[in-house]
């Protein structure tokens, strides 16, 4: 195809590893491979590298190094936070509050706890994906031991009022966990100021490697272990440390948080140019998520009369990587739980497209997508009986 280029607009799914990050990691695969738990001098380099990364993560969140625990990714951090707090505090109560738009790592962990005697309230969100603070307050009972609400949504990009939620939780003496996997590097986070007790993050969302993450646990929070075994991570998380991964996470979070404002401005400018172009060029299009309170790189739109998987396949033919909330791409019956929670009808949710911009993208990428996408949408609409009906005014 003439003029075809590779355009990666799925940064919310995962990112590439930055060169500076990879370079920091490499020696820990080959030369400095020592097990951090070993006593000899050679292994101390490994131990020091992990503590150095821990300090970087702590600094990025305004936490103490002793409050950072490395995990095998974001899902493990979520599972640990939720199950660990639930089981360690079950003498105080059995009630957990979360939302309907959480990542499956949170939702399925909560569903698991429901099978083990816990009760979970799944808060509704408004049409923009925002949690209602009054509804949150009303949901709290004397049995509530944990509130877990994501910082920013992975599909629609909506950013929750985390500091306000943290304040409510602290006043009531309830432990507050937030899944900040999408937020790191996009939103300034201060766990002290925001009254966050636990926070999950994953390196591969901010230009670090896959398979490594961290859980921040505020000093004094009662939590059981999830992974039992050796004495690593101060006896809280067993298993020989993913040394190169942890080193990469440390470098990546340092880079991602050194200039959040500058990074956001650059990405938001590209995003707005793309979003405005889409809304201008493609009729019967709806923006999903909050118009302002959203991640700088996130676009989520629904094109009426067409289905998302076929849209992705055509975009792929033009070298464009994106994602959808349509059921047809996942093989399940229902479209994305997030799009349903913000009140989209099924047929509109099936026509959703998420473009998540990041450091790989340029103005040329944006212009290329704008030159390709309207034609693709029109091509699918020409094929759609729904569009035909609509144009004939039948419905």
């Amino acid at each position, binding site marked *: 195809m003439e003029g075809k280029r590779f355009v990666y607009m799925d940064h919310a799914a995962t990112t590439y590893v930055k060169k500076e990050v990879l370079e920091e990691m490499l020696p820990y695969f080959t030369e400095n491979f020592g097990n951090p738990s070993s006593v000899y001098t050679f292994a101390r380099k490994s131990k020091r590298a992990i503590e150095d990364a821990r300090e970087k993560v702590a600094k990025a969140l305004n936490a103490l190094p002793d409050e950072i625990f490395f995990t095998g990714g974001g899902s493990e951090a979520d599972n640990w936070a939720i199950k660990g707090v639930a089981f360690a505090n079950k003498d105080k109560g059995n009630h957990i509050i979360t939302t309907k738009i959480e990542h499956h790592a949170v939702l399925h962990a909560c569903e698991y706890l429901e099978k083990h005697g816990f009760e979970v309230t799944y808060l509704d969100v408004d049409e923009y994906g925002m949690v209602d603070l009054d509804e949150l307050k009303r949901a709290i009972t004397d049995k509530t031991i944990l509130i877990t609400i994501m910082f920013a949504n992975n599909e629609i990009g909506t950013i929750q009022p985390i500091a306000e939620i943290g304040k409510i939780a602290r006043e009531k003496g309830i432990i507050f966990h937030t899944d900040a996997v999408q937020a790191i590097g996009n939103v300034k986070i201060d766990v002290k100021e925001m009254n966050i007790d636990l926070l999950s993050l994953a390196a591969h969302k901010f230009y670090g490697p896959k398979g490594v993450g961290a859980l921040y646990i505020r000093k004094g929070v009662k939590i059981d272990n999830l992974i039992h075994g050796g004495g690593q991570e101060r006896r809280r998380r067993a298993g020989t440390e993913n040394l190169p991964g942890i080193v990469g996470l440390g470098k990546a979070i340092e880079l991602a948080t050194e200039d959040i404002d500058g990074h956001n401005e650059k990405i938001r400018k590209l995003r707005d140019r793309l979003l405005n172009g889409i809304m201008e060029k493609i009729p019967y299009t709806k923006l999903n998520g909050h118009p302002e309170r959203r991640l700088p790189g996130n676009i989520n739109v629904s094109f009426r009369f067409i*289905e998302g998987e076929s849209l992705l396949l055509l975009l792929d033919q033009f070298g464009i990587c994106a994602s959808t909330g349509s*059921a*047809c791409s996942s*093989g399940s019956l229902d479209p994305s739980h997030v799009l349903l929670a913000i009140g989209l009808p099924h047929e509109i949710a*099936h026509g959703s497209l998420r473009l998540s911009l990041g450091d790989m993208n340029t103005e040329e990428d944006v212009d290329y997508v704008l030159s390709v996408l309207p034609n693709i949408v029109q091509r699918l609409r020409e*094929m759609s*009986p*729904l569009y035909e009906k609509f144009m004939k005014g039948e419905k």
Partner: protein
Amino acid sequence: MEYSDKVMEHFMNPRNVGEISDANGIGEVGNPKCGDMMKIYLKIEDNIIKDVKFKTFGCGAAIASSSMATELIKGKTVEEAWNLTNKAVAEALDGLPAVKMHCSILAEEAIHKAINDYRIKNGLEPWEDKFSKGDHDHHEHHE
């Protein structure tokens, strides 16, 4: 999940897309709520499928199945078209992923519906099939 080259070829270059203004048999099946809907137009003359067109809202497999199914019944007798099974559509596409088999069922169902629409319009008894017996929820297959 990966599609065969044949599916991608039919998805990228679908045959018989469109409407037939003087169609004498039309069948519409599926539900936009479930993410797929198919409409088949037939022009039948002397018991032969002279022309066939389709419009489909759905995934790549749904569009490819519509394209292949219409190709397979073009020029055939009404009886031959009726006997086209979803398996034959899927096989002609070099297979469909298991979760996408319902797309080929949708194509078979749409053709049946269009043929019965033609029969009713011509004062004939509609034929019975597994769909008219109530087994028409194509989504049962992956629930």
